[in-house]
């Protein structure tokens, strides 16, 4: 790790003033669960590290008139233990518990989850976000078992965010501030697919901070997340799905289905959601929605199995949201 300047501002304005116009000028430090490893591996070498954990405006999780407000530096553990999250936002609760390490739940933060960099091993080995060598991506002919099956090329990594799919499905928005003001972005538009080496996988600019996440009330909205990962111990999901269902009696009036870890962004399966309108959630309709959700998937040499996993994740998330257990048990 290279030497860096460290600052620990007490207010949001001070923190924003310490950011720069380039990513390498300054890096916000919250839980540090990703930043420190990026720095140790020399994947990212910031000149300045700005500790934002002392900034009071960025803390706190509480109910608002419209739903739930989660401050940028709220930890996974704070989210998981919040009673409102447990009762009204099970999809968020399950997404947080999917981060199966108490240490990371204690340190990792909401904004950190959104802003963490992809886990693609070519990226982490120094080949850049698009895994390029000699003008060509290493992924298609390489070790791509964990890479994207949807929306891929030229970026093949998968979004690492655990909360992203649930936030998108719940219609959340992300509040972003810079020294010159603030803006609010829909969660679904916060994540983007970069098209060149200098691109970024989120819309945040170097001089900006995520300050809070606003989630509309989910009262009456059936929602769930289902994650498939190789280990029960801490592990990145192979595929995940978050769903939110507005019901009219026993049928779906409006649905949202968002896949995780299968594309460079949380992947909105709009047609699959549309197909559920007017349907009740059964093993059959859920399986059909799963099939529809991976429509257009283009597997690489080693990851066609992720299509099956994505289908199953959607099916099981829908059944869970509807309060039905799937045939394979919990």
């Amino acid at each position, binding site marked *: *790790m*290279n*030497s860096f300047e460290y600052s620990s501002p007490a207010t949001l304005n001070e923190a924003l003033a310490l950011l720069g116009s380039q990513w390498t000028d300054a890096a916000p430090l919250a839980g540090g669960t990703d930043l420190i490893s990026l720095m140790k591996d020399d994947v990212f070498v910031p000149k300045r590290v700005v500790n934002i954990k002392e900034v009071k405006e960025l803390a706190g999780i509480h109910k608002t008139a419209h739903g739930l407000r989660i401050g940028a530096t709220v930890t996974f553990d704070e989210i998981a233990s919040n009673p409102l999250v447990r009762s009204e936002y099970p999809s968020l609760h399950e997404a947080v518990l999917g981060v*199966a390490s108490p240490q990371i739940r204690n340190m990792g933060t909401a904004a950190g989850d959104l802003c963490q960099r992809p*886990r693609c*091993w*070519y990226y982490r*080995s120094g*080949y850049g976000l698009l895994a390029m*060598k000699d003008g060509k991506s*290493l992924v298609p*002919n*390489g*070790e791509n*078992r*964990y890479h994207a099956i949807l929306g891929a090329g030229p970026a093949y990594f998968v979004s690492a965010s655990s909360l992203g799919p649930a936030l998108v499905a719940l219609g959340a928005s992300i509040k972003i501030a810079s020294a010159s003001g603030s803006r609010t972005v829909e969660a679904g538009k916060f994540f983007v697919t970069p098209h060149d080496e200098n691109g970024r996988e989120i819309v945040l600019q170097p001089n900006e901070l995520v300050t809070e996440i606003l989630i509309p009330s989910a009262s009456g909205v059936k929602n769930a997340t289902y994650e*498939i990962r*190789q*280990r*029960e*111990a*801490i*592990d*990145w999901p*192979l595929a995940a799905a978050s769903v939110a269902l507005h019901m009219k009696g026993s049928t779906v009036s409006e649905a949202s289905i968002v896949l995780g870890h299968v594309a460079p962004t949380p992947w909105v399966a709009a047609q699959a959601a549309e197909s559920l309108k007017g349907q009740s959630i059964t093993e059959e309709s859920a399986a059909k929605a799963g099939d529809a959700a991976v429509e257009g998937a283009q597997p690489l040499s*080693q*990851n066609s*199995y992720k299509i*099956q*996993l994505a289908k*199953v994740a959607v099916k099981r998330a829908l059944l869970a949201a509807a309060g039905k257990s799937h*045939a*394979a*048990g919990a």
Partner: protein
Amino acid sequence: MPDSTTPNYHWPPMNDRRVMGKPHTRLDGIQKASGAAKYNSDVKPSGMLFGVLLTCPHAHARVTSIDTSAAENLPGVTAVRVISPAGKELQWAGAEVAAVAATSEETATKAARLIKVEYEQLPFLVREDDLSQAGNRAKPAGEQVTGDPDKAFQEADAVVEGNYGIPVITHCCLESHGQVIAWNGDKIEYWPSTQNVSGIGGDIARALNVPAANIHVHQDHIGGGFGSKFPSDLWGVEAAQLSKMSGGKPVKIFLDRETELLIAGNRPSAYGKIKIAGKKDGSITAWESYTWNTGGLAGGGLAADLFPYVYRKVPNRRINHTAISTNTGSARAWRAPNHPQASYLTCSAMEDLAAKLNLDPLDVFIKNADLTMRADAYRAQLQKGAEIIGWKKNWHPRGEGGSGPVKRGLGLAVGTWGGAGHASKCLATIHPDGSVEVELGSQDLGTGARTIIAMVAAETLGLPVSAINVKIGDNSYPPSGASGGSTTSGGVSASTRKATVNALEKLYAAVAPGLGTTPDKLQAVDRRIVVQGDTSKSLTWEAACRKLGTNKISETGENNPRTAEREGLTTGGVAGVQMADVSVDTETGLVKMNRLVAVHDCGLIINPKTAESQIFGACIMSICSALFEERIADQQIGRVLNPDMEFYKLAGLMDIGEIIVHLDINAENDHRGVIGLGEPPAIPGDAAIGNAVANAIGVRVPHLPLTADRVLAALASKGGNA
């Protein structure tokens, strides 16, 4: 018959033992659990410098130039050494290029980065799973034929042909390889992480060209070795040289996790195309194997006499092996070298044959027991394991694992090992104040060696375990073998037994006249020296020792492997059977461990508690390798992509399920003396788990680890779900 001058070293009769054979908590358990235990990676002598290695990023390259001037000029840097000068050919990513010592780790790291190295990149091969891609890197070992395999295959009732494979995995020692070392004048103080306290000093002495007697080795605890920590290694030698160049200040080099995973050893892979034949009654008649593997640049060996594994006496056999040289870090011994691989390839094929014959594999493994070297032991263990896991009740033919998407299955496999004690010498001292010390230049790898040494001494001297001061981990103590091949328990228990018996004889001689008897009539029990048959005549242990006046008793005892079997304190040769119970979600391909049953014979068990722990650890390692572990290399760039604990996956607590250990503790096994238990339980797990998955889902998943992609691919190959 022992003559009258040879003391009776035999283990006390099984039923008379008061300490040995009873579960005892490990002596250093609290220290380790509380963090009080100091490992050598915790050692920080005054003035210690930090050493860092610069390693090669390429799989195969020649150094064309190296410039260390910027590193040397960095403030805080005390020494820079070029390990690979211009012209040197490097054969794997991670190979050592230069080493730096500085006053802080950050400075040393920065300095290493300032070293400018230019390479000429050369062609490389980093993968061996596809034999057809190996080209001239493949070296066939030649064919061995026994009997008439062609005829036997023709005449068989069933023939099964299959492909099986296990990738390269690594040791993943929690404490990485390395040492702190200080070379001051003609003396070297050396704190390595080692499995070889008595021998490693001599090893580094040769490399440094100093007298071995000038090297003092210390090690109280080690954070894992598993076979990978015997030599002093290049980083030990370099750290010593950096220390010397830095005026004798201690230098610490412990490998970072990436380098540890790349160059500090691995378990060779094993791939094979195997054909096996049998009769309707389940008897195996023929075996044919074409295997290949790698252990790095030197290729990899899977000796012909490992196949078929355990069931050695299959009458008709054809065996071929091809070693593949790859540009990857070199293999090292990994808990039962080559046995888990041989067990996997053999027991998988046997299970597949049983399925083809519509027979229960338990019956097939029992039926063919006469093809093994220890038929009775295997039959008994297979029956015991079956009883514990409820085999006959729970086993079902392949693919009949239930109607839902989650299928349950059972699988079994076998293993064998030696485990006789190594050469070991112990010095036992009884002080006039009654205190007792036993000293051995041995090491406790986390196995409980320290505890069993104390238990043996306590048993012999009639004292509680707490009265024994065990001193190990220092090469100034009498030499004891390296801890490899399950040799430590037999070695240190035999030498400790002999040394303490010898010391006790001296104590008897000193106190016998005062008790009005002869030494041969005395006995040490319950902290007393008593006259046999006359309880009125006795001395407390302390009173007896006071009779020594100012003279302590110091006696040695030695285990010599050449005579040990005759003496009967330690022997070797064990069987083992493991049975796995798994559930497989056929929609996701995820495998869940329910139970792993381990049945092992292991001679005389000194401490059932630490013996059981040894088996737990081995079973967990097998679960890791069966379900998660693989070193993943990319042939495009010649690099390992997962040299970390993130994508190099090990099981967590939730992934392990229940482990049930059955130790074959009985008079017959007890008579065989002490036998090591390090390797045997690390052998059958891979195959047992693979077989359980095949049983659950109705199709073989050919290659470990049994990850979702492989399980789903196997299910798809079968056509639809199980």
